[in-house]
């Protein structure tokens, strides 16, 4: 099922989120990332996580699948986290001091923040690609970038290039497989030897692939010319994206989330204090009993 790669990691189920306009989803993701980075309190972070969880449930995505998307960057995230933990200089006494490593209380908090921020960031991007086909994403991007046409930015051309690239991924994958088989049939060895040997073995695959890609591009150009492509202004567009009630819901959802994050930013400390007070009072109550 190599051909499925063309659809990225798209998870094909029918859900509220899948049917939401790709433009909304793109804007939603941008807003969500902004919210993540503006967030200064644990409350806000929890709210963001809750928001993402709601979207994942609405999208009928298996939680495992979303978490798995982090796998690729997990090393990077942990590495960043450890560096932060070791080198963050807080106020007051360090909890642990060993040679050049000093761990502060603030450092621990900050690291937890940073890690959850990055994890949520990666996972939210994954939700976008899991619920949206690449072609829908391209359409969405084209539509969102339309205003740039006024400053002569080639929006349509860019979108066409992207959609053609997507279209040719499975074709070129098949081609690669054919070339590999052809080279193997002539005794090429891709599986043994050290790293340099293996990299060198890729060259006889890459060169035919490149040549074939150019040949294909030329033929495609002719075929596009023959089908009256001129990139001119009379061009119409068949597929039109439409906002529905889903998009209105999504915007409200985002608005609530953002408001929540900013409210927590301003009043989170007070809320925490209140909680601590409440907790102490509760303990006191039990203590009295």
């Amino acid at each position, binding site marked *: 099922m190599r*051909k499925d790669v*063309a*659809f990225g990691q798209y998870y094909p189920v029918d859900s509220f989120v899948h049917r939401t306009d790709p433009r909304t989803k793109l804007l939603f993701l941008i807003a969500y990332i902004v919210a993540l980075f503006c967030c200064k309190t644990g409350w806000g972070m929890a709210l963001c996580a809750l928001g993402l969880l709601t979207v994942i449930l609405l999208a009928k995505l298996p939680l495992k699948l979303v978490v798995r998307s982090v796998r690729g960057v997990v090393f990077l995230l942990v590495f960043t986290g450890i560096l932060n933990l070791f080198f963050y200089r807080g106020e007051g006494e360090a909890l642990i001091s060993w040679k050049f490593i000093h761990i502060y209380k603030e450092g621990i908090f900050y690291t937890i923040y940073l890690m959850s921020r990055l994890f949520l960031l990666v996972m939210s991007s994954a939700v976008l690609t899991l619920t949206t086909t*690449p*072609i829908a994403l391209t359409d969405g991007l084209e539509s969102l970038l339309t205003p740039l046409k006024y400053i002569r930015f080639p929006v349509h051309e860019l979108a*066409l290039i992207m*959609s*053609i690239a*997507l*279209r040719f991924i*499975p*074709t070129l994958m098949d081609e690669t497989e054919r070339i590999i088989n052809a080279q193997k049939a002539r005794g090429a060895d891709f599986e043994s030897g050290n790293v340099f040997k293996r990299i060198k073995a890729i060259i006889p695959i890459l060169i035919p692939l490149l040549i074939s890609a150019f040949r*294909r591009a030329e*033929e*495609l150009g*002719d*075929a*596009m*010319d*023959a*089908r*009256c*492509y*001129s990139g001119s202004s*009379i*061009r*119409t*567009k*068949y*597929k*039109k994206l439409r906002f529905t009630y889903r998009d209105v819901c999504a915007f409200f959802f985002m608005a609530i989330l953002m408001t929540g994050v900013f409210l927590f930013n301003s009043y989170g400390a007070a809320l925490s204090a209140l909680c601590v007070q409440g907790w102490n009072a509760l303990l006191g109550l039990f203590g009295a009993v």
Partner: protein
Amino acid sequence: MDMQETESVAVRFENVKFKYDQNSRYALNNVSFSVKEGEFVALIGHNGSGKSTTARLINGLLEATSGKITVFGKDVSDKKNLFEVRKSAGIVFQNPDNQMVSSIVEDDVAFGPENIGVPREEIGERIEWALSVVGMTAYRNSSPARLSGGQKQRIAIAGVLAIKPKILILDESTAMLDPKGRKEIMDVVLRLNKEEKMTVIMITHFMEEALLADRTVVLNRGKIVLEGEPQDIFKNSELLETYNLSLPGIGYICKQLQKNGMAIRDCLYPEELAEEIASLLQEES
């Protein structure tokens, strides 16, 4: 009189010469022919005979070195006519994989109409119509990557049809297909020619396909060497051989039977050959 003639002639070549670059030989050397509206013409010839060059000259992908090419009376060399010419003459190429721009069938068929500025609602109707003509309606939302060669090529035809051209040019469009795919394409092409009265120019190296045309033009080294009804063309088997062309399968079998002493007439169609053999056997018994 003159006016009427230009109306009924779809494509006309007048003393057309073409070479790919200054130093090479002429790919087309003084070629003149015309295709009537509604006609089904097959262009055959050995590799390098100039068949594909002819197709590309018709809709202005290549420009003739000298001579004149007109499509429905419009001069192709005039850049102002190019758009109109391409609208009225659509080409389907050899490799279906290299003619598609989108990973969704519907979007790919829409590409042509979008380019010529057809309003949105009408594009939907055209997609519907084009896909039904090639019998691919069920695949409207599929990805071309999952289709067979014959199906992909039918989508490519639909993509050209959606522009509503008057002339359909097939540039070896069946060359990369298996027998089943070839038959699918031929059925569609014949239907378009008979039912939609579409002018068809088919470039092929399958003699069986050339046999289905109204007229066959044989090219050799850039020149037209034979022209006429396919039945007449394939009578000259010795001559065809000198142009590196063979007879259709049935014609070849027939020739071999004659060589072995069977007294039958020249045949090109299976039914014809069967009849000949049957009557011969009856006579003997």
